[in-house]
């Protein structure tokens, strides 16, 4: 029976894990409420808020009009009124209509108020590529991470989604929580990396990376869907005798440079894989922080693999060409292992 249950939970689709985390927190803390398009009656376009409206009512689960500026700013006012809002921006690509309230208000008010006004807000959103072209495929964690005052989280498996969502909802800081659409559409069993998901509430801390596969030749740091791709690539090249240590960063802000640097110091080779745009983003920041930590002579190779500064094309043949998928990762790993 226990086994059946565990199996059932492993078969749960990812969105149910997220909905469970939110429900447990809303139960625990009556000041939590959710606002977003289609999060109520429909339970979220991916099902991540399913069941919440029935359970918590329309004051705490607000089906919003397409008015992101209003309802992201609403979160700021709610926080000022002592509430702990979760706001869903359906796809992260839409942030351009309401970034104002995220970066100029939520992210800055704690500082601007001299620490007198906290902003316990979760901006929950879906990113990543599943064949949806330029305006519905972005990751954009690099954009948020550049702007001070917001934590930025992008988990890769059901266990961490549940734990990091709870952590985000308990945090007194604003958190951007980026789910990956490809992961949202998966069954639990389709995850390579899938630790047990406990029934009860628990948290996973932000800013602690996880070594999800140990290895000795190359350190590969990444996050979100790319962890799955990295594991696949690592398995592929393992058969060829290349041992890859795969690190799931879990959050971009805070960024766990320690864990990555420790690993890179031992392998001497660092590859950062990022489904976000290549330039002015995560890959350069993380690589350089590791270099700053270990010194220019502390590493033999650094490489990065990311979307090469193009909008995501519609045609799958092109999308594949710009994404850091398992094949490209494996190829890059081979080059590195064969290199200097």
């Amino acid at each position, binding site marked *: 029976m226990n086994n059946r249950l565990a199996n059932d939970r492993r078969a749960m689709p990812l969105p149910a894990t997220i909905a469970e985390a939110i429900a447990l927190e809303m139960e625990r803390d009556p000041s939590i409420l959710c606002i977003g*398009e*289609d999060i*109520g*009656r*429909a*339970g979220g*376009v991916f099902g991540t808020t399913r069941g919440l409206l029935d359970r918590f009512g329309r004051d705490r689960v607000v*089906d*919003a*009009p*397409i*008015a992101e*500026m*209003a309802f992201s700013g609403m979160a700021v006012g709610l926080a000022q009124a002592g509430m702990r809002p979760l706001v869903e921006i359906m796809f992260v*690509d*839409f942030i*351009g*209509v309401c970034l104002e309230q995220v970066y100029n208000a939520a992210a800055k008010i704690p500082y601007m108020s001299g620490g007198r006004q906290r902003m316990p807000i979760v901006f929950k959103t879906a990113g990543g590529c*599943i*064949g*949806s*072209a*330029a*305006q*519905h495929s972005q990751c954009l964690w690099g954009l948020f991470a550049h702007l001070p005052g917001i934590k930025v989280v992008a988990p890769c498996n059901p266990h961490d989604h549940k734990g990091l969502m709870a952590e985000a909802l308990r945090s007194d800081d604003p958190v951007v929580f980026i789910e990956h659409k490809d992961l949202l559409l998966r069954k639990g069993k389709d995850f390579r990396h899938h630790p047990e998901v406990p029934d009860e509430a628990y948290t996973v801390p932000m800013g602690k990376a996880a070594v999800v596969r140990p290895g000795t030749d190359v350190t590969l740091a990444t996050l979100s869907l790319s962890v799955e791709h990295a594991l696949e690539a690592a398995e592929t090249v393992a058969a060829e005798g290349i041992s890859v240590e795969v690190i799931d960063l879990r959050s971009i802000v805070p960024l766990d440079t320690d864990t990555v640097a420790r690993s890179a110091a031992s392998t001497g080779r660092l590859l950062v894989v990022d489904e976000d745009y*290549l*330039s002015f983003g995560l890959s350069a920041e993380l690589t350089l922080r590791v270099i700053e930590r270990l010194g220019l002579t502390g590493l033999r190779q650094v490489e990065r693999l990311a979307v*090469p*500064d*193009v*909008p995501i*094309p*519609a*045609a*799958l*043949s*092109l999308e*594949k*060409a*710009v994404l850091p998928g398992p094949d490209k990762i494996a190829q890059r790993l081979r080059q590195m292992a064969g290199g200097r």
Partner: protein
Amino acid sequence: MIRANAEGNSGEPVTHARFRRMARMRAFDEACLDALRRGVIHGELHVGLGQEAVAAGMAESLRPEDAVVSSHRNHFHALAKGVDARALLAEICERETGLCRGRGGHMHPFDPATNFSATGIVGASLPVALGYAHAFGMQGGDAVAIGVTGDGGSHTGGFHESMVMAGARRLPLVALVENNALAISVPFSEISPTATVAERSSAYGALGLHVDGTDVDAVARVFAQAMDHARAGRGPVIVEATCHRFRGHFEGDPEGYRPREERRRLREQFDPLTLYRARLEAAGESPDVLDGILAAEKSGMKTLLAEVLEDEMPDPAGALDHVFTDNAGRPA
């Protein structure tokens, strides 16, 4: 008898032309559904089935120099504007022969030749249409810019800001609001502070028109009125066309938010082709002629799809092209 004044089948009675346009639009989106089932379309496909009368009614008043900026649900507006159906279908099917060489996809068709474009961001069509309207105002002709959005889009800040600017400058902008009473799952009645969108026009010094968007004759008449107003330099117009969405918001939408029963009822009661057919037959039109139009459009579109599916996919070697004119700024 009035003759159709737009593309193809010239000399055809206007009733036939209207029916044919709707039939073509329906056949087009059915071809899309077919292509989707064959796995050649990706992402969230939004078809317009049930809403044909709106775009078809609009088509008659459009001139080549006018501009239409549409939304995520844009196929019918593209056809109404005269975008080449083959190039559009090829784009939706992500082919190199597509309107945008397979880079844009179904939510992002751009056709400089017909002044047609779209966006996947709700409400973002209006500001772009405003730009055309300003250009038209400067150029001194009587071209009009149409920004198309849904009921959901009428709540966006961009809608308001665009109407404010168009109102103050009396620009030739028509905001066409396809009110299908739903923004994905959220009913208009629950999130709108007003019973209609059209009644908000007074906030912008605009003309507000409301029309039954399942009645192609009514849409054609009301839309013509809107265009006359805008062409005459009398400022912006909001045209609200009420209609019904027959399928999910996107293909794959589980539609947990409305009973199957209701969807069936909408299809039975409000199919604009069925309604128009009934009107024409009551006025003595031969069912055979109408069947002939339906069959011709359907088979034409089937052929088109078959052709398009033979077209090449974009060459991955070109995946980085077209970002900048000089390909500068690309990392080494």
